[in-house]
């Protein structure tokens, strides 16, 4: 089956999930082509046209520095995709590896999974907050901090799933035919875990958006000059009674993208391998 057929199989008959998928494609396109789509420089300050209502020139109005909110929102999509994809990559690579290795090498696992237990003893945003105080506000650090939080969850999920697969007859067959540890892990176990990993990735992506926005809002996320949706809300917070558009547009964009990702994740989970369905909680 090629990719288009698989996508069709997942989304056929699921209207909401299909809309969600379309929204995500639009967000990604906006992120990629931000310089072409944004009519203004997102950082350009124009004191004369500050706090202007939405108009044909400024579709989403302007903020307290006279910056074009629409252009900032377009560039915000770029930050959303970078933070989301970065957190997913970090969480899946570190957490996934820890989980798989822990389940496969049980002695190593009894040690590593205790470490995961300790990480899981911290409520998510609190862990992110404390880690963020150690690091400077930057894009990479925000990704690392959010990634660490979800690496622990991912490790625990993959630990359980790898344990289930490890006892399978096809693993015995692989061992008999002389396969090494690396080959068993990455050529026999990992391919079975790809679809649950994809589902987990969608949920991490959605959570990461909310976490990043919360960190931005608390002043502990991305540097304040970076045009992210969270920062836009944080900065214009005191102007909301005078300029409600500063609250509506970035907020709606966060909600739309997180909601869409959750819808897609749900649809993916429904079509996933039933053996692992209970392992991934999602929203």
């Amino acid at each position, binding site marked *: 089956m090629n990719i288009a057929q698989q996508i069709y199989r997942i989304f056929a008959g699921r209207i*909401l999930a299909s809309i969600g998928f379309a929204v995500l494609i639009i967000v990604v396109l906006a992120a990629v082509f931000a310089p072409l789509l944004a009519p203004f420089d997102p950082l350009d300050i124009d004191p004369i046209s500050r706090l202007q209502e939405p108009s044909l020139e400024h579709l989403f109005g302007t903020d307290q520095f006279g910056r074009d909110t629409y252009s900032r929102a377009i560039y915000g999509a770029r930050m959303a995709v970078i933070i989301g994809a970065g957190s997913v990559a970090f969480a899946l690579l570190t957490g996934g590896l820890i989980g798989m290795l822990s389940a496969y090498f049980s002695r190593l696992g009894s040690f590593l999974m*205790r*470490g995961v*237990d*300790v990480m899981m*003893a*911290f*409520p*998510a*945003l*609190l862990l992110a*907050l*404390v*880690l963020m*105080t*150690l690091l400077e506000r930057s894009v990479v650090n925000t990704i690392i901090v959010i990634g660490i939080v979800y690496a622990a969850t991912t490790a625990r999920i993959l630990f359980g799933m790898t344990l289930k697969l490890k006892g399978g007859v096809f693993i015995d067959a692989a061992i008999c035919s002389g396969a090494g540890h690396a080959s068993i892990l990455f050529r026999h176990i990992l391919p079975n875990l790809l679809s649950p990993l994809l589902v987990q990735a969608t949920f991490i992506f*959605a959570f990461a958006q*909310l976490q990043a*926005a*919360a960190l931005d*809002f*608390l*002043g*502990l996320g991305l540097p304040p000059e970076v045009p992210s949706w*969270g920062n836009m*809300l944080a900065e214009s*917070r005191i102007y*909301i*009674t005078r300029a*409600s558009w500063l*609250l509506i547009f970035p*907020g709606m964009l*966060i*909600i739309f993208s*997180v*909601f869409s990702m*959750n*819808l897609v994740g*749900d649809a993916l989970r429904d079509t996933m391998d039933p053996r692992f369905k209970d392992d991934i909680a999602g*929203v």
Partner: protein
Amino acid sequence: MLAYTLRRLIAFVPTLLAASALVFLFIHLIPGDPASILLGDTATPEEIAALNQQLGFNEPIYVQYFLWLGNVLQGDFGTSVFFRQPVLSVIADGAETSIWLATMTMCWIVVIGIPIGILSATRQGTWIDQVTSGFAMLFASIPTFWLGLYLILIFAVGLGWFPTSGFPSLSDDGGLWNLRYLLLPSLTLAAPNAALIVRLVRASMLDVQREDHVRTARAKGLSPSRVAIRHVFRNALIAVAAAFGFTFAALVSEAVVTETVFSLPGIGRLVVQSILRRDYPVIQGVILIIVVLYMVINLLVDLSYARLDPRVSLK
């Protein structure tokens, strides 16, 4: 059951110690010298040295840890460098707000989340189910602070029904009436969590619905509502109770944001402000208390889960 309890307790202590060491270490990895931050830019080196001596910052790190742990076990969490008061009393000052906020939020979660979850599960596949499930997912996708700001804008600024921020103590003028300050914050905090409970109740009821004893109950002619409540919901509640630890973690995380939005004098805002002020002892104290509380809750949830469902302890 006894063996299971012992096994859980034995696993609990090392994790607790490791977590406390991590709490201790985090704070000491923060860039910047606490004494010089505390005294400001005009401090002389002598003043900084004297303060380091006074607060024990000159000792080796492991000595500091054991000193700290020993003190903590005696209830001494140090002195807030900002408030110049014992950390425990600073935290206690915020506790009233946070406990009331959490209580009201839990009420909303139970009152809103559980009935809608039952409704959604018993009407599985109908438009009612689709609408409630859709809204549950939507509310789980809204950033807490955005919802809070919007509620302030509409109900506090626009309609003037509720105060915009703050929370006077219940022992101040107004008494219980002061809880109105927490109405918008508790709804804000409840929204995403109630949404999760709706989805959880629905999912676990659908699971139980497929079991044999439910078919038996239906076959012997019980009314659908009786089957739904007595036979399905009661069993599904076990899974919901098991998620209580998770709900607690979510509440704590989102309370940090909610208390900041509504300027509530609670523990959540204390964490954020202490981080911005680099008030190390307070950050340490709050995080430690929350982590220990969270671990104890999870332990209790697991033990009661095993008691409610004996299959768990046999695994």
